[in-house]
């Protein structure tokens, strides 16, 4: 006689096994981290832990951080990094960033770096729990004494590259590379950072469309679709592959990536191979144009190395004080690995003539002759952001509450 149970055995075994595999991917682990003194003895290995939100080799945001750590290790051979990547609820369902930090601190880390905006609460929790460990939150504003969310936690610091001009350059290159003025952006989630970045890209695109291409700004369509997170989480976010495809198939001849992972490049390559005249603009990672060189307009990439180096040197010396750093580019030498907080690499698809325009634009941004955060500028809903001649303050830029007039896509 068979019961209900046996009726289902085979199908259940399969279902459960897949569940088991999924659930076990979750690996949390903690550890009571004793508070460590910040300054090590000379010659001793100094351990830095890094909590990474996505895959370490994503050809984007996360890999750029790992590159930064390699730079530090090259300059300071006695520094060792410990990494845990894919710390997000999709990949590790039962793990929080703060737990991973505990674990890294238990392994001897004296500095812990959280590499995503989403870790802001984990970073604060870790800093409170381990007052003798330097906690760095890459992005974020909890350590900005003039910011809105200052927490006054002495061992918590923020580091972020001032990438807004990088986004302006990216927008400019995209406009220069577009024939029909339809520029799509695959965006991550909506927050202050992504709003100001998208807006900066739009300002750059609009400027170059009008001033170098001499085209009517009305012909410029600048649309952003947000997927909901920094990268694809199947079943949770929109699928960036599909979003990119929709742009390429919908007549957008340039698609910009604003997410951590390379779907825009990969789908652009496929579309180009199928005969579409499309181009893409990459983000985050220096090698981004190598994904599809022939259709790449360029890539603005983070150069975390110098910023991390400075913090770790100070932490080693025991002099680090939690500060908020919005690290600037080196306009004299944008791609200088030792001095510039971001860099820009032009892609093959830009073309020689456009390269000249782009160089002119970059020069203008660097010497201040081109200042795009200047009024008159309106928000997306038509309200005034900056009056004529008014220049945005750092706070106004950082906490940009809406996208700008002329952009398509949700602001919140």
């Amino acid at each position, binding site marked *: *006689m*068979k*019961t*209900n*149970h*046996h009726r*289902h*055995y085979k*199908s*259940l*075994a399969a*279902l*459960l*096994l897949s*569940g*088991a*595999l*999924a*659930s*076990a*991917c*979750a*690996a*949390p*682990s*903690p*550890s*009571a*981290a004793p508070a460590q003194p910040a300054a090590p003895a000379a010659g001793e290995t100094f351990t830095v832990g890094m909590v990474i939100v996505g895959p370490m080799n994503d050809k984007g945001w996360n890999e750029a951080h790992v590159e930064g750590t390699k730079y530090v290790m090259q300059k300071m051979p006695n520094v060792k990094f*410990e990494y*845990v*990547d894919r710390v997000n*609820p*999709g990949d*590790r*369902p*039962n*793990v*929080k960033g703060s*737990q*991973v930090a*505990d*674990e*890294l601190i*238990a392994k001897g880390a004296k500095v812990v770096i959280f590499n995503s905006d*989403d870790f802001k*609460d984990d970073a604060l929790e870790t800093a409170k*729990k381990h007052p003798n460990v330097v906690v760095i939150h890459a992005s974020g504003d909890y350590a900005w004494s003039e910011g809105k969310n200052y927490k006054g936690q002495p061992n918590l610091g923020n580091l972020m590259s001032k990438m807004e001009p990088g986004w302006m350059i990216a927008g400019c290159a995209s406009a220069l590379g577009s024939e029909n003025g339809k520029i799509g952006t695959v965006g991550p*989630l*909506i*927050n202050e950072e992504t709003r100001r970045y998208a807006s900066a890209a739009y300002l750059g695109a609009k400027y170059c469309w009008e001033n170098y291409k001499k085209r009517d700004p009305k012909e410029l369509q600048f649309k952003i679709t*947000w997927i*909901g*997170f920094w990268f694809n*989480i199947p*079943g*949770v*976010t929109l699928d960036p592959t599909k979003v990119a495809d929709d742009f390429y198939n919908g007549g957008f001849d340039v698609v910009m990536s604003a997410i951590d992972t390379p779907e825009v490049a990969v789908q652009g390559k496929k579309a180009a191979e199928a005969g579409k005249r499309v181009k893409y603009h990459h983000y985050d990672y220096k090698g981004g144009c190598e994904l599809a060189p022939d259709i790449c307009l360029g890539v603005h990439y983070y150069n975390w190395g110098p910023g991390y180096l400075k913090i770790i040197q100070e932490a080693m010396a025991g002099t680090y004080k939690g500060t908020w750093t919005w690290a600037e580019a080196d306009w004299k030498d944008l791609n200088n690995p030792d001095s510039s907080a971001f860099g820009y690499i032009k892609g093959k698809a830009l073309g020689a003539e456009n390269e000249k325009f782009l160089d002119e634009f970059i020069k203008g941004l660097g010497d201040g002759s081109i200042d795009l955060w200047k009024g008159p500028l309106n928000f997306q809903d038509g309200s005034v952001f900056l009056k004529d001649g008014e220049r945005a303050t750092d706070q106004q830029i950082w906490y940009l509450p809406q996208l700008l007039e002329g952009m398509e896509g*949700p602001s*919140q």
Partner: protein
Amino acid sequence: MNGAAAPQTMTPPARAAGMPPTFYRIGAFAISLILVALVILISGASPVTVIGSMVGGAFGTADQIGRVIATLSPLLLCAAGLVYTFNAGLYNLGVEGQITFGAIAATWALRLLHPEGATASLLPPPVAIALAIFVGGVGGIAWGLLAGALHVYGRISEIFAGLGLNFAATGIAIYLIFGPWKRPGVASLSGTQPFDESLWLGTFGKTEATPVALALGLIALLMTIVVMRNTYFGLRLRAVGRNLRAAYVLGVPARRQLLSAFLICGLFAGVAGALQVVGVFHRLIPNVSSNLGFLGLLVVMLVNFDPLWILPVALFFSALNIGSLQLPLSLGLESSLSGVIQGLLVLFALLGRGLAQVYGRKPEG
């Protein structure tokens, strides 16, 4: 009478006259261990190092032990709840959704009791937390009964009803996180604004383990052991599980029994979800269940539906879950390897049991 025996009703074929049943079980376990070792070797590590570092990563420090307990508590609740549904012959795969909906309900309650921007909650924090856990339980019941109603009245397989409702619950959570409950000015799937610290469940020292969650898990388990072994309700549940028609003919109110099983499982899962919110994440996140419901299913299947053995097995799985973070950290291995280990153990335990039933020699007397 042993509650575990309930689902074991497959009659061994008359021709079978093999080894004693334990032979198959031990054999299957041995094979699973060998395979686990092989998988670890193939991934380029030593089985001894891997097991050692996972054990060390689960019990090495107070924080780690705390986290094992923090994982164990909801797991006990889910596993205890699943004992009822399994014994009623139901595969309640919807347990994940019941956790999620419990978490949503608890978040809703806390948002009402401590509106955004308010400096203090409307009720004293311990009352607010207790109420949130209660509301979470009610949410879990609602989601469990929904699956039950679809099964009992709609004649939909509880497996598919449950899986469907899992998607629905996650969908609702994502909608709320991305929509009405989003952090001000932010649309991110990373979760809602964390609750005020006064609404966080107290912990053992600085660890993540909360005494309340552990107590609730143990109470649920103890209650389940008593109910399944010593009560008429438990007996009727097993009767329904063994043979629904026969139970019905003999006067057991089968529908009510089935719905009760869904209700209790939903309650426990909902409480687990609420605890994930007030005790672990302190906010609602899309994957708030952390797949602990599926893990609970594995635990209960591995212990052959007998609640007596849930505690050690759940503890083992929690430790595996926590310790596996050491794999990427210390050994540069994928932490999903622990999932493979877990899956192999369960698969072979089930296989051993099946073989024992089909080919095992019936014990004399």
